[in-house]
Structures are given as C-alpha cells and as structure tokens.
C-alpha cells in the first residue's frame, strides 16, 4: 500500500495466475502492449486450484488492497478439473470475507484464456479501478484489534 498525501491512492493488487491460461494471457497482453497499471503484481501458480485461501488472506494481511485469481475458463482447465474446485473454494471464501464485513470488491475470480490478452488487461484495469475506489484495505488487516 502506497499512500501519499498529495498523490492518488495506489492500491497494491496481487494477481494469482495459472500458468497455462491466465499467465499466458498476461504475457499476451504484454506482447500486444496492452497497458494495465503497475499496481498489479502477478504470482505464477501451475493452476488456479493451487491457490490456497491462506495465500489470499496472507496477501491482504501483509498489505494487499485487492487480490484477483485468474484461471482457465471452466471446462478448459489444463488439468481438467482444477478450476472447478477453485470456483467452489473461492465462492465460499469470498462469501465468508463478505460475511466478516470485508468489502466485496477487493476479491475477484476471472477466467482468462491464453488467447485473451485484451481481456486480461481490461480486467486488471477494471479491478484496479474498483479497488482504488475502495481505498486502502484496513478492515481485513485489522479484523482483530491488536492485543493491548
């Protein structure tokens, strides 16, 4: 999180991308020079189903303002079924975070294929904008008051 009084709030976005579709999609937006903000930092995972909810919580707790998870489209998982598990896991995790009063727009799952460089860039632009609007992530970082 980088906040400067005079500067616009710049959120830190962590993007988990599966190696086969979304990471390749991110590469393609690079190859096609499709801009998205520097706020987005990508972590490569073999499949979206490798992403443990703990990673997402960890990112938030360490100062991320938004976390997005990208994988192959349902039905197109390189490993056949990984993203179906991801879908259930993340649906429940996001629902729980919402239940705890964490802003919904800080989390997102997007299916981006290796051919969708434009979608990747557009998604990252949108997501960064949405998180920017929310301001810094304080709630999840501070869900539990520090002990006295």
């Amino acid at each position, binding site marked *: 999180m980088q906040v400067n009084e005079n500067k616009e709030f710049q959120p830190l976005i962590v993007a988990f991308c599966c190696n086969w579709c979304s990471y390749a999609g991110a590469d393609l937006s690079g190859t096609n020079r499709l801009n998205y903000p520097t706020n987005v930092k990508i972590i490569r995972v073999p499949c979206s189903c490798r992403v443990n*909810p*703990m990673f997402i*919580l*960890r990112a938030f*707790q*360490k100062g991320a303002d938004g976390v997005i998870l990208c994988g192959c489209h*349902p*039905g197109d998982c390189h490993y056949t*079924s990984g993203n*179906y*598990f991801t*879908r*259930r*896991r*993340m*649906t*429940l*995790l*996001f*629902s*729980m*975070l*919402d*239940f*705890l*009063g*964490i*802003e*919904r*727009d800080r*989390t*997102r*799952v997007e299916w981006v294929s290796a051919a969708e460089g434009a979608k990747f860039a557009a998604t990252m632009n949108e997501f960064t904008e949405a998180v920017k609007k929310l301001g810094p992530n304080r*709630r*999840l*970082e*501070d*869900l*539990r*008051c*520090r002990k006295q």
Partner: protein
Amino acid sequence: MQEAIISKAKQLLADGTVNRVIGWKKGEFAYDITPAIFESAEEIDADFVYDDFTSANVSKYLVKESKKEGKILAFLKPCDTYSLNQLTKEHRVNRENIYVVGIPSDGKLDAEKIKAKGITGITGVEKDGDTLKINTIYGEETMPVAEAMSNKCLSCKSRKHVTYDELIGEDGEVITSDRFDMVEKLENMTSQERYDFWRNELSKCIRCNACRNVCPACTCENCVFNNPDSGVENKAAADSFEENMFHIIRAFHVAGRCTDCGECSRVCPQNIPLHLLNRKFIKDINSLYGEYQAGADTTSKAPLNDYTQDDCEASIVHERGVE
C-alpha cells in the same frame, strides 16, 4: 438415564464386548463434567456421571482410543454420532473398534446461563417440565428450562442417531431448526455493521486454542498452525498473520466437514460465537451446492472436494443485493 447407561456399560464390559468405556466424570463443580475412560465396573460406580450438564462430545477422543487394543464403548448423543460418522468417513477412527450406544438427549444445560441469573453454588439440577429446579448450597432456586439451555441445543438440528450399534430409548428425527437465523440476521446487516460485529467479537480472542482442541473435525496429526512448512505456523515471534486470520482459516479448514455440533462456541472462554462462521459455510453450501449435512453418512463427497460444471461463479458474492 444415568442408571440405564451405567448398567449398559457394566454389562458390555462384563460380557467382553468392550474392554473400555468412554464416559464422563465430575470435575471440581457439579456442572463441570469432563470425558473420562473407565476400564472396570468399580471405576464406573465411583465416577461415572451422565446428567443435564453432560454435553461434552466424546467422538474426538475416539481418534486415539479406537487405535488401541480392544473395543471401546462410547455413549453418543444424536449430535455426537454425526461427528463420529464424519471421522469414520475421513478414516480418522477405526469404527470397528468402537461400540456405539446411542443415547437420547433433550438438550443440555449451560451453567454459565444459570450463573448469569445470579444463582451460585450449584450442587445439582432437576428438570420438572419446563421448570428447572436448581439445588445450591444456599437452597433451591428455579428458572425456566429454556433459559438455562445451552445455545447449541436451542438450535438442535437432529434428534436422530446416524450411527450406532445399540440404542437406549427411542430414536428421534431430523428436526427443522432456526439455526441459520443469526447468520441471516448478520447477512442482512450492512458490510460495516458486520465488520464492527466481528471485529468486536474476534478481538476478544485470547488464542487459547480451546475451539480447535475441542473440535471433532480438527483432528489433524499435526495442525497447520503447528506446521513449519505451512507458512502460518504459530510461533512466538510470528507476525500477526496467523493471529488475525486464525478463525477464518480454521473455519475454512472445516468447511464442508463441520457437523455443526457447536462445541467451539460452547467451550470458548470469551463467548465468541464461533459457530456462526461454520454455519455461514454450511448455509452457503446448502444454498449454492445443494443440502449437505456433514456426518450424515460415510460415503458422500465433501462439497469442497466435489464440483459440477454448472456451479455458480464466485461473482455471485458480488452480485448479491447491494447495500
């Protein structure tokens, strides 16, 4: 009831069906009942207790006990049988080494609730219809049973035993409960209100680990919070990550496996309604992936280890009514 149970225990020990019994014995106070192992009729006669304060679920003890030599007898209330089934399904207990006697339960009492009425020095209780007679060292007091009933029993979901070798009394039915009411109430709050609620609750946590230790789903050989490779190890010098996220991670770990036995909230010394986190998952699973009751059987696939091609997208969370 206590007599029936004790005689059953002695009978099964005597005929060699089992060589141990897991039951309960009194602690320091009358309402302080804890699980205990009995190996002889004498021990049973001396200490065995089963009364309205006996709520502890003994299934978790069976993880270790069922791996020992010989069969062990366990008396299980309906809710406890769900826990045992779930453990059986996850290969955590050796079901063949357990002799289960199902016992009925019409709800257990919460001593804290009685004490909250200003009643102290409790030596025993007696139910008389809807009225609870409480014997104290200062004399007899009364209060409505419902007001002394433990929270988890107030929202009881089933009076049915899903696994047993023998029953004492008649078996009950799965009942409709209002257990999701509080979850729903929270869901209907604004995000800020929910946040304030949980921040207030979770800040009370002293990380005593009682919730984890009592949970019949938390039976890992080594808890992730003790696993140096997990990245969330609970170290003295650890940063606040594990501290902050403990309850979310714990709830997620038991999602789809939690039978909603309510033990976590019951044992919490800070009275944090931890069961609401579990119920939220259960409610979501029921509404998104179809009704699922963990522990109801030993063969079904856990919802998080399963999928359909037409599952909803995670964006369903974002699409819910805007506050």
